């Protein structure tokens, strides 16, 4: 039996003798392997981004929305009639043992002015609980206190983006800004938080005491009204008990009978993000389908070209048999030729996939992650394709009768 190395040499000679044809043959594998690489890069990049975002929002989060739950699942219930109040939020915090932090939310977009600079941003009325719940630290200054909330003082905390747009390099702490013409004293600046799962800049935000928002900024349908209550449970295991406790408490507070529909909805934020993750998975699957189809097509291309090659080289096979090549020598030669074609295609596909993945992340900002494992996986896929589709032509070559092979014109 001849060795693997001489077989590779014979294979590379044969491939070089037909450069153009070899490259065209490899194209299917190149595209297939490239797609595998891109798929895995995009998939794991998306997963990592989601994980980062879940961490940035805060873990074990529940969200209480006004209005009955909709079948869509993703509806935030915005626009339903307001039913939640600040007292509801306080009650949840005091009476639900599984709950860790509670943050009422009353927000709206508002025009903000400092000096001659103005900026339109999301202003959120909330309590100190918001920052505990989201594990959001201060860059400078202080948080507002329970006293600020009780007294509805006109103080505010700014996100990084707002500071950059209104103040530039000036230290904003102690300065007075106008939110919808109402003067607010800046008492602190929040640390940078980055993008939210829906792609919003979380640093483009101003936080004020919820009571101040109710009285001075956003007219409310009834006193004490808030839009949303954010709740964090004491741990992952407490999410379900917390959900139950909140539902029970609010039912009681809103006087909802056992047969009546709830006028609020408790949602688990991790579930919402899970839906986004599912979307990323579907995209991965789609790319995976493309990858496997083009690997199969590429493999058939290799098989086709190998069959042509076997026919073209019938006489060569006869010569080799006449000088002592065994059936397995011939088989190995063509198998290795197919393998070389597919592995070369695999390498080019990996390079192409890495290039495209990098381009995707620079152009769209969509993160991609290329793991050594995915490269190995793609490489082995191309190898398996080569062996699988190369076997039949190689087998056919080895069955040739040396005499008729030698006589072949």
């Amino acid at each position, binding site marked *: *039996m*001849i060795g693997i190395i001489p077989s590779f040499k014979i294979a590379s000679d044969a491939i070089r003798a037909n450069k153009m044809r070899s490259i065209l043959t490899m194209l299917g594998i190149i595209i297939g392997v490239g797609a595998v690489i891109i798929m895995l890069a995009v998939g794991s990049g998306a997963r990592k981004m989601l994980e980062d975002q879940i961490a940035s929002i805060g873990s074990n989060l529940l969200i209480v929305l006004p209005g009955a739950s909709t079948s869509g699942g993703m509806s935030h219930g915005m626009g339903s009639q307001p039913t939640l109040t600040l007292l509801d939020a306080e009650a949840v915090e005091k009476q639900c043992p599984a709950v860790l932090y509670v943050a009422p939310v009353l927000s709206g977009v508002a025009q903000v002015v400092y000096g001659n600079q103005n900026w339109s941003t999301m202003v959120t009325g909330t309590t100190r609980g918001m920052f505990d719940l989201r594990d959001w630290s201060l860059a400078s200054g202080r948080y507002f206190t329970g006293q600020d909330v009780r007294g509805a003082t006109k103080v505010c905390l700014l996100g990084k983006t707002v500071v950059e747009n209104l103040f530039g390099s000036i230290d904003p702490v102690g300065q007075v800004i106008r939110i919808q013409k109402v003067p607010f004293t800046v008492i602190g600046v929040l640390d940078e938080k980055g993008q939210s799962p829906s792609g919003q800049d979380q640093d483009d935000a101003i936080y004020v005491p919820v009571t101040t928002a109710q009285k001075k900024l956003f007219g409310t349908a009834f006193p004490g009204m808030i839009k949303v209550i954010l709740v964090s449970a004491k741990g992952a295991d407490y999410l379900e008990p917390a959900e139950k406790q909140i539902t029970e408490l609010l039912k009681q507070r809103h006087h909802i009978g056992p047969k009546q529909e709830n006028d609020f909805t408790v949602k688990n934020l991790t579930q919402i993000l899970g839906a986004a993750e599912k979307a990323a998975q579907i995209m991965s699957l789609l790319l995976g389908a493309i990858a496997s189809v083009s690997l199969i097509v590429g493999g058939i291309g290799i098989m086709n070209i190998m069959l042509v090659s076997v026919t073209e080289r019938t*006489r060569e096979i*006869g010569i080799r048999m*006449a*000088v*002592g090549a065994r059936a397995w020598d011939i088989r190995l030669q063509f198998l290795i030729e197919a393998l070389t074609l597919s592995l070369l295609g695999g390498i080019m596909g990996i390079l192409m996939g890495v290039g495209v993945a990098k381009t995707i992340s620079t152009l769209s900002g969509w993160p991609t992650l290329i793991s050594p494992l995915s490269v190995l996986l793609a490489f082995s896929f191309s190898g398996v394709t080569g062996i699988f589709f190369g076997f039949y032509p190689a087998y056919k070559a080895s069955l040739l009768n040396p*005499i008729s092979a030698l006589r072949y014109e």
Partner: protein
Amino acid sequence: MALIEVKGLNKVYKSGDVEVHALRDVSLTIDLGAFIAVMGPSGSGKSTFMNMIGCLDQPTSGSYLLDGVDVGGLDGNELAEIRNKKLGFIFQGFNLLPRTKLVENVGLPMLYAGVGAQKRRQMALKALEAVGLSDKAGSYPNQLSGGQQQRAAIARALVNNAPIILADEPTGNLDTKTSYEIMKLFVRLNKDLNVTVILVTHEPDIAAFARRIIKFSDGRVTDDEEVKKT
């Protein structure tokens, strides 16, 4: 013991309903160091006989002992090994691998004998020297004349020190002068290395280089005689 001993060799080709008896009851022995010319009209079974002797094909019936081994009982791998170790083939059309350097062409049998690259090259160069082609080791077949290509093919047949060279019309594609050069090479190899040479030819002047002439007609041996050298 004879090097080659065939008894009652028959070969029947079936194509559809038609049966062609390419060989009929051929029996003969050939000793080591013989120099034989096989002659006969076209279609008389010369190539079929050579293929049987060369273990490229199996007879329909009859026995073939090569070096005392019954070839009929061997499997494909064992036949390949015999072709590799004991037989060297030379064809009318040279049959060198295109796009492959001469030194690699000549070393091909050693490749299938599992010899390492360095030794292979060394032996190929030695064989090329024996046929006077040392300076063409790095050339490709299409850069050589017919006579040079045939000499390279002879080098390939020699490289494994095979005791038998089988040549089916080796001079069929060559002019007279080149043919004589090739024949002289065979004579020298036969004399110096004691290689058994069996060659097929139509030309009496080529056959005249041999010491024994076997004539075929319609699949039978009709004549088998030693040639008296003057």
